[in-house]
């Protein structure tokens, strides 16, 4: 996975992400899985992401998105 942008890392360390930053994090984890943001969110909701820890994390991140 490519390193996260500094601002995103800082937001995670501070403990609060905006919705835009959450979407940015999902997009970066999706990229690490070779997926687009939209594909990753759809597959997370359908529970058909690859079975590894990045996908596990991504699936939990998608649960943070507003319904």
């Amino acid at each position, binding site marked *: 996975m490519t*390193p*996260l942008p500094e601002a*995103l890392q800082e937001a995670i*360390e501070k403990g609060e992400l905006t919705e835009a930053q959450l979407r940015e994090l999902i997009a970066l984890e999706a990229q690490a899985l070779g997926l687009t943001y939209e594909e990753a969110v759809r597959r997370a909701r359908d529970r058909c992401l690859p079975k590894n820890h990045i996908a*596990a994390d991504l699936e*939990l991140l998608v*649960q943070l998105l507003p319904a």
Partner: protein
Amino acid sequence: MPIQGWTLREAAQRFCDHVNYVLTRTVTQTRLVVFEVPPRIQVTFRQAGQPIEARLQTRFGLMRLYLGQVCESVTTPDGMHELRTIGYRYTLTPGDTTEPLLRWEYLKIPPAGALWCRHHLQGPVELQIHEHSVSLNDLHLPSGYVPFEEVLRFCIVDHGVPPLSEDWDAVLRDSYERFKTEFTR
């Protein structure tokens, strides 16, 4: 197992600090990181913002542990933020393989139309049922709510992970009780 705080941040940090304390006394110094996207929070192992796994030396060789949880805040009548679990994922993955051997999962709200057990255990484990060979990945083996303490106990007792303190058993038992009493209304 609700955890409370006067703010979402306070409740989230309280949860994260507690689990990190238990982890450092039992199986790993790898630390969980918490962040909020109100009204929800996520807790997982992270380094430089990226999700990571804790490396455990077991009697079977290297295993990697992933812990992740999402909680939602509910405001109580007295104005406290109370955390409710929306989902968790605990996995154990051997060596350098990518797919976990065991996945304990919970989803409060499963996908539309899904009727399977929301608390379940899965993994690439072949089961022989009469003449049928079935993967545990294709089943949703009911597990009940799995406290994280029990996964750590499984790592120490069944996988032989050397505990990081002499009082690891008491730490796990106390944590379990604390979630049932102090952290629970």
